[in-house]
């Protein structure tokens, strides 16, 4: 029991909203509460959730990263060029595409911490640069035709079971990040910087270094997301990941992370991502237009931010 209590779901309201949503959709739509659909939902959440995991670290520091969607496209195209067009081994493609994503993150981090650019502006620039590079390198074309063994990551099941590999990867990443953010020095410093950057600096934390690390992780996770997405779709597209950063940021906010930094949890973000996917899935099953889905997700973000602002106001009083 004692260990159970340690798991921090941030503010529990997101978990309660999730449960309420599940019950509600289950009542409204008979196809919703089925095992197949549950697996479907988890499969559909992997891309958003892994992306959000990286962005979350940046948000903990009080920053923002809106370049991740474009980085997903860029590293996917790099993978396609290397593996499909140049015919090099899969391993080389994976490593290089992750390195490209990591580099984008490091670049963001250096611009923000060393050159004091505003995170929104620096990552906006990266968004445009990465998208432009992806389109240029790909020549505007989709690259497809990957080896079976790679597609396994996005389409296969763990040997002998019906559990998709991508879900296992996602859960493993969340467990690792939960551990790091909660129990390692790195995690505690990230929260501290988000809580009060000046105080952290004065108490001897190398703020710049940790900020660069945070953006690097965000970039790297965009690279991992890209691998899953390419394996899922068997194609790398230069227009992939358009506006995915919005889903990722929304997951963090709905999950209880404050855009002011220093607050929230890895698990909260996971729940936030599931809430977004469940809304889409549920409305989809009910046959409701995606135009309206966008509206509903916007409304949920608004509610989450309002809840966050009420919480903060109360703390100040």
């Amino acid at each position: 029991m004692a260990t159970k209590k340690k798991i921090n779901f941030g503010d529990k309201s997101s978990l309660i909203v999730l449960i309420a949503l599940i019950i509600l959709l289950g009542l409204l739509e008979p196809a919703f509460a089925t095992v197949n659909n549950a697996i479907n939902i988890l499969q559909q959440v992997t891309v958003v959730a892994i992306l959000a995991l990286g962005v979350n670290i940046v948000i903990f520091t009080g920053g923002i990263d809106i370049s991740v969607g474009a980085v997903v496209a860029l590293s996917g195209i790099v993978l396609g060029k290397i593996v499909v067009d140049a015919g090099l081994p899969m391993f080389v493609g994976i490593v290089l595409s992750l390195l490209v994503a990591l580099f984008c993150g490091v670049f963001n981090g250096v611009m923000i911490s060393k050159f004091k650019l505003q995170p929104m502006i620096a990552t906006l620039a990266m968004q445009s640069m990465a998208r432009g590079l992806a389109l240029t390198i790909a020549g505007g074309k989709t690259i497809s035709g990957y080896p079976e063994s790679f597609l396994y990551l996005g389409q296969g099941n763990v040997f002998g079971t019906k559990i998709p590999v991508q879900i296992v990867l996602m859960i493993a990443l969340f467990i690792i990040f939960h551990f790091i953010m909660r129990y390692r020095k790195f995690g505690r410093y990230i929260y501290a910087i988000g809580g009060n950057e000046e105080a952290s600096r004065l108490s001897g934390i190398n703020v710049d270094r940790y900020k660069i690390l945070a953006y690097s992780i965000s970039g790297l996770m965009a690279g991992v997301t890209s691998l899953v997405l390419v394996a899922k779709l068997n194609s790398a597209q230069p227009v992939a990941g358009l506006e995915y950063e919005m889903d990722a940021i929304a997951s963090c906010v709905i999950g209880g992370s404050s855009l002011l930094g220093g607050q929230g949890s890895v698990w909260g973000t996971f729940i936030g991502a599931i809430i977004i996917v469940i809304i889409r899935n549920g409305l989809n099953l009910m046959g409701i237009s995606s135009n309206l889905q966008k509206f509903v997700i916007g409304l949920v973000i608004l509610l989450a931010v309002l809840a966050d602002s009420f919480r903060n106001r109360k703390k100040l009083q």
Partner: protein
Amino acid sequence: MKFKKIIALMLATLMMLSLVACGGGESTSDDSGSSEAEAVEPSADSDTEEVSSDAEEDSSATDGDIQIAYIVKALTDEFWEDMQAGAFAYAEEVGVEIDFQAPPKETDVEQQVNMVENAVVKGYDAIILSAADSKALIPAIITANEADIPVILVNDTIDMDELENSGGYVETYVGIDQYEAASLAGKHAAENIEDGKVAYLEGISGVQALQDRLDGFKDQVSDFEIVASQTANNDRNEGYNVTQNILSANPEVNVIWAVNAEMGQGAIQAIQQGGFENIAVYDFDAASDDIAAVQNGTLTGTVAQYPELQAEGAIQACLDILDGKELEAHTKTKAELITLDNVEEFIANKNN
């Protein structure tokens, strides 16, 4: 205090969802309402009985209760709206139920994949799909195959070889032959324009249908000089910008082929604002803007592909498959080049 907040949040969510559910209901009842209203309007109140008996007859024509998921690429384009209207009208006529869905943008491939997966879980009787990418939808189609749900492609084909190699199949592709349809415009250009210098506005990459349209035109005008060939991602604003750039670099252009209506309209705007003359613009879709443009002479020709007929063909294909009939790999629907010569006729037919 905290409990109160949670209750408030839950209530808000509940409210929102019921609002959405109502919204959805409203729009479908709106559709049937408006078409019914048209039927009823000329006659008096007492005739409502007739209408309802009509509906009964229709539904008894099939075994009723057939549910079809109709998943297209977006709803941001008149073409898809026309297809949706055609689909609802025909569905009502033959007494099937359709859920018409689309991701917010044509580039949201992943979301379209999710929609197909969701449709499989929901267990529709058939899925009609207009694939947003020629390869990415293949795993989702296979999922539907495994669940024994027939898949019918409409308007957009996919990479059939790859589908076959992966062990999947579709019942039929309902739509025009994109290549043939585009060659109608190409032929017209080849016959009417001397010393052609052509600029191509390509569509979103990786979409087979758009590539076929490009090739179909190109092969007819092989003696034209290709001055530029760039994508404008099926978007009007991008079409405007790209055309503006092409024309400022190559003012000698005298033919433009845009593979969809939105880009064609963007090109026309750019030509007018730049004060260029004697540029023959051809585009694809025959949306209402295109028809107006053909009438006032800013658009030389537009290829009509009758989305309503495609929707009818696709729904009919579902019914045939569910009846156990075999279908050909390609169920062809009508395509036609609309120019100043036949535009009035086209409008008259559309209004009927």
